[in-house]
């Protein structure tokens, strides 16, 4: 047996985003929800969200985001060795979407798999992609978070319908001479698996206050561990990119980590909670808008149903 295991580092070399063209503002939500813009913004910070059209699926949106990320990276798709699709909104368990995305972007030499860690999926996928590149399983790896989470929305349930949106974000990971993706810190807690789950009718259900309480009390030590694992001080961070679930969670986490020099990603205001897509969408947007620049350090942390969580320090491409 051989195990070549080349000693090398990894980094993100390209980002891509796909946002549905249809935007639903709080004013556009069904009247049956008995809510209003002020009520929603006060509790969640969300003003609008993208809603995928009937022709858009987790696969088509992932394909768009991945294609843009590969172009951004300047990589020949044939050199991509792995495609990881983080999603929890495919309408059926098989076939997975990752192989279709790989084929659609021309990654004809890539292995592919779907990954379901719900809202935490992208950060898990990024860790897998990074390890694949570092250990030589793939020269380049594409990781995508793509969700048509409105597939699961009960439009009469105010506690969930106001929160979610659709979209896809992607990153290309490649080899690097210097560390560009820090060690992942992840965890899970199956005792709280009922906090975010599905009804018997197949609709998303969450206990908002309990999730809020967990996120604002349990994740502080995870963020510290992420920084410690990479040897990065919070004051070194140029960006803080937590899962875009709720602006009040984001702001609470930002206060806890104390990243005084960091821009705080607030894509949730315009995008809603896009589950596995939220971190790459927010990361790509910060770069597109010039809020961060090449070489900047960002802390990503994602968390959700399971419960599952994961995060790492990344260098902005």
């Amino acid at each position, binding site marked *: 047996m051989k195990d070549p295991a080349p000693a090398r580092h990894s980094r993100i070399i390209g980002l891509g985003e796909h946002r549905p063209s249809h935007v639903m503002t709080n004013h556009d939500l069904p009247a049956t929800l008995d809510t209003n813009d002020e009520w929603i913004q*006060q*509790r969640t910070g969300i003003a609008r969200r993208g809603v995928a059209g009937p022709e858009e699926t987790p696969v088509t949106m992932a394909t768009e985001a991945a294609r843009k990320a590969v172009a951004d990276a300047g990589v020949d798709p044939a050199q991509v060795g792995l495609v990881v699709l983080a999603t929890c909104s495919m309408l059926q368990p098989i076939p997975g979407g990752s192989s279709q995305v790989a084929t659609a972007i021309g990654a004809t030499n890539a292995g592919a798999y779907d990954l379901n860690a719900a809202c935490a999926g992208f950060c898990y996928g990024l860790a897998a992609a990074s390890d694949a590149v570092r250990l030589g399983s793939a020269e380049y790896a594409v990781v995508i978070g793509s969700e048509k989470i409105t597939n699961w929305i009960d439009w009469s349930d105010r506690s969930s319908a106001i929160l979610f949106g659709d979209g896809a974000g992607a990153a290309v990971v490649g080899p690097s001479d210097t560390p560009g993706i820090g060690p992942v810190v992840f965890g899970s807690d199956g005792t709280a698996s009922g906090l975010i789950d599905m009804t018997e009718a197949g609709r998303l259900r969450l*206990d*908002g*206050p*309990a999730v*809020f*309480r967990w996120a*604002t*009390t349990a994740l502080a030590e995870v963020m510290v561990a992420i920084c410690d694992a990479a040897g990065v001080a919070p004051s070194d961070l140029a960006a803080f990119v937590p899962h875009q679930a*709720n602006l*009040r969670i984001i702001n*609470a986490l930002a206060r806890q980590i104390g990243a005084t020099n960091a821009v705080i990603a607030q894509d949730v205001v315009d995008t809603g909670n896009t589950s596995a897509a939220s971190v790459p969408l927010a990361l790509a947007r910060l770069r597109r808008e010039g809020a961060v620049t090449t070489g900047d350090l960002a802390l990503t942390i994602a968390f959700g149903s399971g419960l599952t969580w994961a995060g790492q320090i990344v260098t902005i491409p």
Partner: protein
Amino acid sequence: MSDQDILTALGEIVQEATGIPADRVVPAASFTNDLDIDSLSMVEIATMAEDRFSVSIPDSELSKLKTVADVVDFLAKAGVAV
């Protein structure tokens, strides 16, 4: 710790969590109807009270605490100290 001490401390917590002046935090006040405090702010108040009083307020109990007096009673029965 007297009920009045608990009430005073609770008023400070509510003011810090929500910006609502502590003098509006009176025993008869309903968090939802009188103080316009939403469920997430209630969670913030609960977690701050847990830290301040070294007490546990589980979600199952929190959902029963409708008025300021309910919280003061809960904390008094828990035998909290400063």
